Every structure is written in structure tokens, then in C-alpha cells.
């Protein structure tokens, strides 16, 4: 992006009204054009070696997630085992990037994943609605971090954002980031509640300016969750942020991505909208649970030349 933007960035975070001015000055998003571009890019046909590469890359980008009231320690432990060795009969299958759980189960996941490369991510800040006060949200974050989670998935205060209290949203992200210490902060925008692509763009920049390491589409608890056009807007934001500041920030798409075909469409979008350097688990993630099994089945099909039943994969 232009030099002018880099200069405006310094000014943007000075106070609440500068932030509002900056966000209002972002170029608009044309809905028809954006959706058309996303649909065109979704027609890319990924075959053979490229597909093999894409499947392995997608597996390595999965945040294997369980966020249910019914979660048990046993279920989390078996999820962790699967995260490390997704397809035990094919030891060359890459591990996933992280396991994502509620904060009270973070310690269980940390214990189960000790000594592996798989990270533990914990949701926090009164996930998924974010309806609590700052103190509770920070205590929630502290629980996650103290339990050993190296990644924290926070939700923004959508109410404050939609009311136009950008400064409050910004301050909260800054506070949570501080509470995270060395842990990575993913900021969930819950794009399904933001209503317009313009808002998605504003919320993306707001989260990036406040220090979010990754901007994330959704909690998975609200429909619509991740969509390709929304991912385009967020990928444009991290690309432009990098252009302006030199800093590399990531994107996580979550919710509703269940098939290999969907996942590959997102990888194509990453490749052609943000650029090749974002095609790494440190800068792009899939928040998903059932996606992994489809990736594994497609991986087997590529190797064997035929499909095998889901019964060969661990639960």
C-alpha cells in the first residue's frame, strides 16, 4: 500500500478519534466485485502433485478443535493423539498445527502434547459471545495462559464494534494481548455478526493495529462462519498491513470448512490474494474438526488410487 498509509498508521492508534478517522478512511469494499472475484478464484482446478502438496499443507495448518460443553478430558486426550499422528497407519502424514480447546481443558491438552510440535490453543475472553466484563475476560485469558496454552483465541466485543466504540474494542485487544505474554493472540472478529464487508475490513485493521498476531473469522458458533469473500478481505488486510509495516500477521478461517475441496479453495485464495509467503502454518490456519478426516481420506485416495472407508482413521 502507499506511503501515505504507513504515515497514517502511526497516527491511527494515538487516541480513539484518530482510530475512528483511520478506519473511516479505509477504502470501501464492493460486495458484487468481491464475491465475483472469490467465485472466479474458486474455479481453480488443483490436480496431481499440486493437490498432494495442498492436502499435506492443509493438514499442517489445522487447529484441531473441540469446543463443546460435553467435552471430557478423555476426549481431549484422544484428540491430542490424533493431532500428533492423524493417520497412524501412514506415519508420513504431517501433524496438525494445534489443538484448540476451552481454557479449563488447556492443561489436559498441554500434558497430552508435551514433547510434540503440536501447539495448544485455548479460547478465552468469555468465548463465544464475549458477553462479560474486562476483568472476567482477562481472568479467562490468564487461566488459558497459566495452563500452558501458547495460543489464545479471543473474541472481540461485537456490540462495542457495531456501536462504533472502536476505542473500547482496541483497548480490550491490547489488554488481552498483554495478558497473553509470549502466547500468540488470535483475534476472532465473528464476521457473521459484522454484517458488511466494510465492517470486516475495519475490524481486521483494528485487530492488527491492536497487536493481534492472527485475525480469525469466526467462533464456529454463529452462522455464517468463514466464507471465501470474507477470507479475501482479511487476506487483503494482512497483505496491506505487511506492505505498510513490514510485519507479517496471520489469518485463521474457522467454521463450516469440512471438505478438502473447500480447504484447497482457501489455499488458492491465500496464494493469489495475500501471496505465497502466507502458505505456512504460522500465517494461515484452519479452525476445524471434521475437515481433518476428509483431508486424510483424500490423502489416502491420492496414494492408493481409490477411496478407503472412514473406519481406518482414528475417531
Amino acid at each position, binding site marked *: 500500500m502507499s506511503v*501515505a498509509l504507513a504515515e497514517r498508521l502511526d497516527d491511527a492508534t494515538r487516541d480513539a478519534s484518530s482510530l475512528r478517522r483511520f478506519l473511516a478512511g479505509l*477504502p470501501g469494499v464492493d460486495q458484487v*466485485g468481491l464475491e465475483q472475484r472469490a467465485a472466479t478464484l474458486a*474455479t481453480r482446478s488443483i*490436480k496431481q502433485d*499440486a493437490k498432494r502438496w495442498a492436502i499435506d499443507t492443509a493438514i499442517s495448518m489445522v487447529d484441531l478443535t473441540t469446543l463443546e460443553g460435553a467435552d471430557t478430558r478423555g476426549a481431549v486426550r484422544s484428540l491430542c493423539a490424533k493431532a500428533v499422528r492423524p493417520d497412524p497407519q501412514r506415519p508420513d502424514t504431517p501433524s496438525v498445527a494445534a489443538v484448540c480447546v476451552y481454557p479449563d481443558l488447556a492443561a489436559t491438552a498441554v500434558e497430552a502434547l508435551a514433547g510434540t510440535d503440536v501447539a495448544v490453543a485455548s479460547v478465552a475472553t468469555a468465548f463465544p459471545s464475549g458477553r462479560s466484563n474486562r476483568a472476567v475476560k482477562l481472568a479467562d485469558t490468564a487461566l488459558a495462559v497459566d495452563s500452558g496454552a501458547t495460543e489464545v483465541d479471543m473474541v472481540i466485543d461485537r456490540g462495542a464494534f457495531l456501536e462504533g466504540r472502536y476505542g473500547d474494542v482496541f483497548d480490550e485487544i491490547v489488554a488481552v494481548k498483554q495478558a497473553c505474554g509470549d502466547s500468540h493472540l488470535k483475534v476472532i472478529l465473528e464476521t457473521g455478526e459484522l454484517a458488511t464487508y466494510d465492517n470486516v475490513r475495519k475490524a481486521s485493521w483494528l485487530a492488527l493495529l491492536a497487536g493481534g498476531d492472527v485475525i480469525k473469522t469466526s467462533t464456529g458458533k454463529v452462522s455464517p462462519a468463514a466464507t471465501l469473500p470474507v477470507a479475501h478481505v482479511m487476506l487483503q488486510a494482512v497483505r496491506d498491513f505487511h506492505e505498510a509495516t513490514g510485519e507479517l500477521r496471520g489469518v485463521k478461517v474457522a467454521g463450516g470448512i469440512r471438505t478438502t475441496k473447500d480447504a484447497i479453495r482457501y489455499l488458492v485464495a491465500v496464494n493469489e490474494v495475500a501471496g505465497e*509467503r502466507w*502458505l505456512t502454518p504460522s500465517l494461515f490456519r484452519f479452525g476445524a474438526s471434521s475437515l481433518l478426516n476428509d483431508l486424510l481420506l483424500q490423502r489416502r485416495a491420492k496414494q492408493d488410487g481409490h477411496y478407503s472407508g472412514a473406519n481406518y482413521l482414528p475417531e
Partner: protein
Amino acid sequence: MPVFDYAPAPENRDIARVKQYYQPFIGGGFVDGDGEPLKTLNPATGEVLAEVSTVSSSDVDSAVHAARRAFERVWSPMPGAERAKYIFRIARLIQERARELAVLESLDNGKPIRESRDADIPTAAAYFFYHAGWADKLDYAGLGPSPQPLGVAGQVIPWNFPLLMLAWKIAPALATGNTVVLKPAETTPLTALVFAEICQQADLPPGVVNIVPGAGDVGEMLVTHPDVDKVAFTGSTEVGKLIQRQLAGTRTRLTLELGGKAANIVFDDAPIDQAIEGIVNGIFFNQGHVCCAGSRLLVQESVADEVLSKLRARVETLRLGDPLDKNTDIGAINSAEQLAKIRELVASGEDEGAQRWTSPCPVPEKGFFFAPTVFSGVESSMRIAREEIFGPVLSVQTFRTPDEAVTKANTTPYGLSAGVWTEKGSRILWLTSKLRAGVVWANTFNRFDPAAPFGGYKESGFGREGGRSGLAAYLKGDDDGAV
């Protein structure tokens, strides 16, 4: 650094069912013409695709004669609701054979399969569907009571959208009760001849549609034929002027859709990311072989650097190559002649002092290809700003005020289309009244809909195709003695 190299994903060439030899379609049957046969090439390889029998002047006579007979005996007396059935049937058959037509179009023309599959063929079917709906409602088109067809239409179409241009010509002619003799372009005759098969499949009465392949001489025979009532031509301004001169003083009705040098105007409040897409789509769609291509980018000074740097980054992602590969964005230039013309104009741009930037994408060794190119620092006096290049070459100029944008946009003998990118609705409306262009797109580009009239101002021609105005071009008006 990871590399996401898309493996080749070619569409199966056999789907096109290319025959070695194609014949003209006259009076409901395929017959050998007496003209010199022509060889049509696959521009992506330079290899011969098929041989096509062309017509002589006596063949044109018999085609016009067949069309006249069909007009008088069958097609014009037929109730509109009956005509509609045939046209609907043609539309459905185009959809049924869409894959075959798409692959054949890409083979013969060089355009990427993504475009022939997702744009050309579905839009062609849409034009037939739309006009089929009009056939029994002409009384209610606001063109007077019981509007009457003109008779035999002689139609000459270009090579850039072979089947789609055929649809633009044939669908309104048939819906209004005219019969047709159509000459496809010399380099892209194949889909028109498959369309002739579709007419047979649809049981269209013999002579209602006739297809006469050949070069410019056949076009001349057709448009100057004394028994042709209406000439519709899409092609270069040079040939359009020639036709108009030849038809001056005759009773033959004429519509012309000619060249263009469209301005695509980007204001500082535009949705920049989508404007970039619109610029790319405006000039690199169909290798820039588009008469309404947004070949002149006018960008407001305050965002010029940002737009240009984003544009270059985007253009670098365009994939040039095998038109049949489903991931190809830019296919082959249609012919060696066109490639030479593009090269000549690009060289003139460099000579005249514009700064050339060309995408570093790999270019195939075989076939006719030209990498997407953007010229900045372009002055209105340069040839690349004035002449239609008809290739993937964009000329960029800047402007400071809206008035300057209007002046620059209108500084051209052409007036086919224009694009405006701004979030301000009032500015869009103001510009549409100032821009001397037949189509003005707002926050989009190169969108075609059968309900929207398309046509030019100034040297881009006259007459409209599509919508109610498009029907009027094939119906008698007050000056034809209609009631």
C-alpha cells in the same frame, strides 16, 4: 518458502469433437461451397485445426434466396409463440452441448476454457432464452402495434467472441421474424457451423438460418447483396466505414458495432481492491480482444501510485498459457496478424516515450502469445492512447479533477463503453450524463446482459443489440412505411 505450483489441469480436447472438414450451411443442409477452402488454426499451437469449405458469390445468392423463401413462406407468417418454441429449443441445445462448444471455442479462438465455459457459452444461451421470450410479445415492446420484420438479415461477425456474437445477431433477428445469412470470421468459423447443426437438431425450418464461411470478400458479397434487407456488422471501424459507404443510398438498413478505446476511470474514493479486479477484467479478459475493453485506465493522481503498484502485483498472478488448462487466465492471441499488430503498437508506445511494464510470467514458445503489459506515463497524443490495440495492453493516464477525467475519457473518436469506480452515487450519475459512450459500467466492467442494450457513440457505430432497442433494429419503423 513453500511453492504452490498448480499442476496442469487440461480440459479434454476430444469433447470438442473436431471434424477434419466443415461445410457451409445453406437452405437447411450442409453443402460444399465453391470458394477456396480455408484452414483454421489452433492459435495456441499454430497447428491446423480443420479445413472449412467457403462460399462463392453464387453460394451467397442461394443462401440469400433460401433465406428469402423461408422468410416469406414460413418464418414471418408463423405466430410469434411458435417461433419462440424454436428459439427456446436452440437455447436449450446450446446448454446441452455447452461443454463441446466451450472446448471448440477455446481451440479455434485461443481464449481460456474458464472464459468460454463460464462466460461465452452461457451468455450465448442467455441471449437466445431472452429473445425467445420476446417473440410472442412484440406487440407490447412499445414499438407500435404489430411491428413487422425487415426480411433477410445479412450478418457479419468478428473472431473475438464467435458464438456469443452469433447469438447477439441471430437471436433478435429470429425473434422478430427475420431470417438470417451469417458470415462467421475467417479465423473462427467452427462454433458457428456447430450452431448450424443445432439448428438442424431443433428442426428449424430450412433457410431460416444460413451460415456462409469465408473471408472479407464473402462479407462484401453478403452486405452488398441486393436482396438483403438489413445488414448487421460487428468488427473494425475501418471495415464498418467501408460498408456504410457501400450501402449509402440503398434501402438496406444498417447497424454497426465497431471499435472502442474505453476509459476506465478510478476515483480516489473507489473500492480499490475491486477496482483492481475491474481494471484486470476490463483489459485482460479475452486477451484484450474486446471491442469495449477498458484499454485506457484514468486514475486520480492521489491514488495513482497505490493503484499501479497493486495492479502490477495482481497482473503478475495472471496465468498465461494453454487455453484448455482450467487454470489459465490469459490464452492465445487469435492470429499471427493480430499478434504482429499488438507488437507494432507496443513498440510505438516505447518509441513515443511511455514506460512499459510487462508481467514476468512465462510465455509458451509455440503459438501466438503476448504477456500482459501496462504502459504508464501515457499522453493522449500517443498511438497507444488513441488506437485500438485489441490485445492485453493497458495505457495508464492520471487526472486531477472529475472534469479532467471526463475530457480525457471523451478525447477519442470512439464511444463504445466506459467504466467508473467511485463509492459516490451522485458522481456516477453525473458521469453517465457526461461520458460519450454507449455503455457506462459503474464499479464493474465487461458485464453483459441480454436485457441491456449494447452499442456505440461516434465511430464505435450505431444501433443497439439487446433489450428493447435491440428488437427495434430488426423491425420496421415509421420511416419504413409501417403503420
